[in-house]
């Protein structure tokens, strides 16, 4: 059993008249499998990044390392979000559907990690 500490900081001096300077942290207990920080070159074909059959409730980190090409992150066949160049995501995943990744074009690099709760 290990402890994972994720921290998010949001800052802006001009998004409103009230300066945004915000930070939140958490202490997560990792009891199951870990997929250490890894990188993969995507293509325009779906890649199953995390199979629901392999993981239960987990925390997922994703970062698009490309500087121009976006990628889609799909949850099964009905839900997705788009990870634009340079963007990251950190979210809890239920493990009830596969997480797939596909490039909008080319072969952008995706950095990823998973920690099972």
């Amino acid at each position, binding site marked *: 059993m*290990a*402890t*994972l*500490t*994720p*921290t*998010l*900081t*949001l*800052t*802006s*001096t*001009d*998004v*409103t008249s009230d300066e*945004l300077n*915000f930070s*939140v942290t*958490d*202490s*997560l207990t*990792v009891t199951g499998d*870990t997929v*250490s*920080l890894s990188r993969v070159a995507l293509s325009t074909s779906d890649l199953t990044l995390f199979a629901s059959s392999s993981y239960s*409730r987990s925390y997922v*980190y994703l*970062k698009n390392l490309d500087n121009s090409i976006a990628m889609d992150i799909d*949850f*099964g066949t*009905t*839900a*997705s*979000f*788009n*990870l*634009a160049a*340079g*963007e*990251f*995501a*950190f*979210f*809890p*995943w*239920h493990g*009830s*559907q596969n997480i797939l990744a596909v490039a909008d074009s080319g072969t952008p690099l995706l950095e990823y*990690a998973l*920690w099972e709760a």
Partner: protein
Amino acid sequence: MATTTATVSITSSDLTPGSPLSVSASTTLMQAGLTTGLTQMETGVIDLAVSTEFRIGPLATQVSGSAHDIGSYLYLCNKSTDGTYWIDWGIHESVIGLLYAGDWMFIPWNASDDDAAIEIQANTGTNSIEWAFFNSNFVLPTDAG
């Protein structure tokens, strides 16, 4: 245009013996496909009663222009202090994950259509949910009714 920066750091001293984890990533929240920052921010706190659903951010039909081109970002934090409290979050009717008391998440989100709405639902107790939504071109409804 506003410049808003999001930074995540993930650390662990005991995940892998002898090899502490330290990950950091930062991104400036940009309009999709552009190098100009997002202009709009909504924030709030809601008390979400058990079995109650709540939609975060606008529907695609409330966003002007081509919905596919609207870059948005979502922050959610379950501020509940009871460790048995949790909500699920999903895109439309697909549950993606569970956000327990104290947990937070940050994702980009593109309002491709109304079925891409981000929804949360409390499953135990009344959860206090802090949220922030960053985007551009969100058109406030003209008819509150």
